[in-house]
């Protein structure tokens, strides 16, 4: 995978969905009054007959999606992550997950990437969706993966929660990357420390691994965009023999990637110390992405600290490089 600063692209999801829907006439696109924000203005303008703005009524939107899917459609439901999970959990459970329908729930603005405060910050969406039988959970913040994931989630029958970064989407993967719903990606090899990351924390994990490597701790990075079903085999293989495993997610440390990895390691009998980087079971506040990721310990330095303190507690912790943001690019905090 590439290193920052990253080139950014706009609307990779919206473009991929229109492209696929031209081919797959069964696709219907629903929006909950957040059309431009979910990149589905492209769908609305290109394929207006198959676009429905349900308005600010997420419970109803999920139910309608279920009815359309029962009648044979593949339905994309688009809104912010908080509104399609926390707000209408019972509807997602009963109208989509339980009947195992072809509804793809696309939740934008993951974790602390929203300046909107706790009402807009999806810090528990992965945990909620992961708890539902039949649901596949995918956390993406890379334009290359997003472009491929739209087709992949349609080809996988059944409900999917697709968690996407909103706005400027970095190009983190090489063009040769092939996104898979079944396999996590060994983005970097290493033996002593193992970082498992998803979504917006992948860039920070890559930089942290480079810092650890440069200071004598050989570190691997597993990019695990699919949190359920987790590719436990790849993660367990990478963790076995390591001295520290660090998970990094833009989500609560409860119920998301960190929990899934902990379960996988424990069940495999891999007794490696585990540190979870994520939102530490708190509601955050309003602020910029840079401010919030720094304040709530979602930065490169936090990942370096977690691995270093576990492996070499008596030695001074190496410092992460400063990564100033320049216009038109993206970098981790």
């Amino acid at each position, binding site marked *: 995978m590439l290193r920052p600063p990253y080139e950014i692209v706009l609307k990779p999801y919206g473009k991929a969905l229109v492209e696929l829907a031209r081919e797959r006439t069964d696709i*219907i696109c629903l929006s909950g009054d957040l059309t431009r924000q979910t990149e589905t203005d492209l769908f609305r303008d290109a394929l207006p007959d*198959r676009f*429905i703005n*349900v*308005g600010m*009524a997420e*419970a*109803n*939107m*999920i*139910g*309608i*999606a*279920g*009815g*359309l*899917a*029962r*009648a*044979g*459609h*593949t339905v994309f439901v688009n809104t912010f992550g908080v509104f399609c999970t926390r707000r209408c959990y*019972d*509807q997602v459970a*009963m*109208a989509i997950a*339980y*009947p*195992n*329908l*072809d509804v793809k729930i696309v939740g934008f603005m993951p974790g602390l990437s929203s300046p909107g405060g706790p009402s807009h910050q999806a810090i528990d969406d992965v945990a909620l969706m992961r708890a539902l039988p039949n649901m596949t959970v995918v956390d993406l913040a890379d334009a290359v993966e997003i472009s491929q994931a739209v087709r992949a989630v349609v080809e996988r*029958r*059944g409900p999917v929660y697709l968690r996407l970064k909103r706005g400027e989407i970095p190009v983190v993967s090489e063009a040769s990357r092939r996104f898979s719903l079944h396999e996590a990606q060994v983005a970097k090899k290493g033996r002593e420390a193992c970082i498992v990351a998803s979504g917006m924390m992948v860039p920070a994990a890559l930089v942290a691994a480079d810092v650890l490597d440069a200071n004598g701790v050989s570190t691997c990075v597993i990019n695990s965009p699919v949190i359920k079903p987790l590719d436990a085999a790849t993660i367990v293989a990478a963790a076995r023999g390591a001295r520290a495993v660090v998970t990094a997610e833009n989500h609560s440390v409860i119920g998301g990637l960190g929990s899934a990895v902990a379960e996988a390691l424990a069940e495999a009998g891999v007794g490696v110390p585990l540190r979870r980087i994520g939102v530490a079971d708190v509601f955050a506040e309003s602020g910029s992405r840079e401010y919030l990721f720094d304040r709530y310990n979602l930065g490169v330095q936090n990942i370096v600290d977690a691995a270093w303190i576990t492996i070499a507690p008596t030695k001074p912790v190496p410092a992460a490089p400063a990564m100033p943001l320049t216009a038109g690019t993206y970098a981790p905090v």
Partner: protein
Amino acid sequence: MQKRARLNGKSPGGCGDGRLRAGAPAPVRVGDLARLATRIRLHAVHMVGIQGFGYLGQALSAAEIFAALYGGGLMRPGWDRFCLSPAHYAVVHYAAAAEVGLLHPEALKSYGRDGTELEAISTERTPLLDLTCGSLAQVISGAIGFALASRYAKDDRRVFALLSDGEMEEGQTWEAAMFAAHHALDRLAVVIDANNSQVDGQVNSVTTLEPLADKWRAFGWRALEVDGHDADALVASMQSTASERKPLVVIGRTQILGGLKSVPATADGHFLKLDPALKAAVIAELEARLA
């Protein structure tokens, strides 16, 4: 058990099979709907009587509504959609389905028992329903999804959804009502069993739903109010047409105990206890009506 095409999403991708069919089957017509309703009640009493308690009030109040829907020539089996919102009404669904030949009457004996396909609260496993949900007020949104799908498929299916009055306390009902009217879903027909009963007692002691018809009209629906124990009137109202393209709601005013004299007026209609003496009295009253 004889089954109509399963349209309740058990197979991945739901029930797209039906819209590929060239023609729709004929609806079921039963000559005497009042008699059909009595037979539905009788089945329900026997089913609930096995355990001595259960959701009998739902069958007593909605027997004519189910007689109208299943035997009134309204629904073409396997073609038109039937969505049962209050899953506690499964008992009356089974009883009516058996009466019109969609279920084997022997199967009714397994109602509510462990391992049965005829669960007391209907689920995704329940036969012959296009949609149901024990978490109330969700089904109307799914019915809207069916109506939209028919519009996309350019077919002539109607979508019938049975709702109870208590679930109108849930906000999703009104989200859905606004949406259906905005999109002029005139193939959608909602029928409400307005029996003024919910778990904690009379609906109007818990909250004020009235004026119910005016509420639906204000949300853009064509609303008709009928005696919910007059099956012919229910059929006529659900067959009625209008020049305006609006979804239809038929409010059937009913009594939770279905007007049975043998059941004490103080009985809990939502979850009726039926001891052997009461069961015998109710059966005698119903059988006298059939004599």
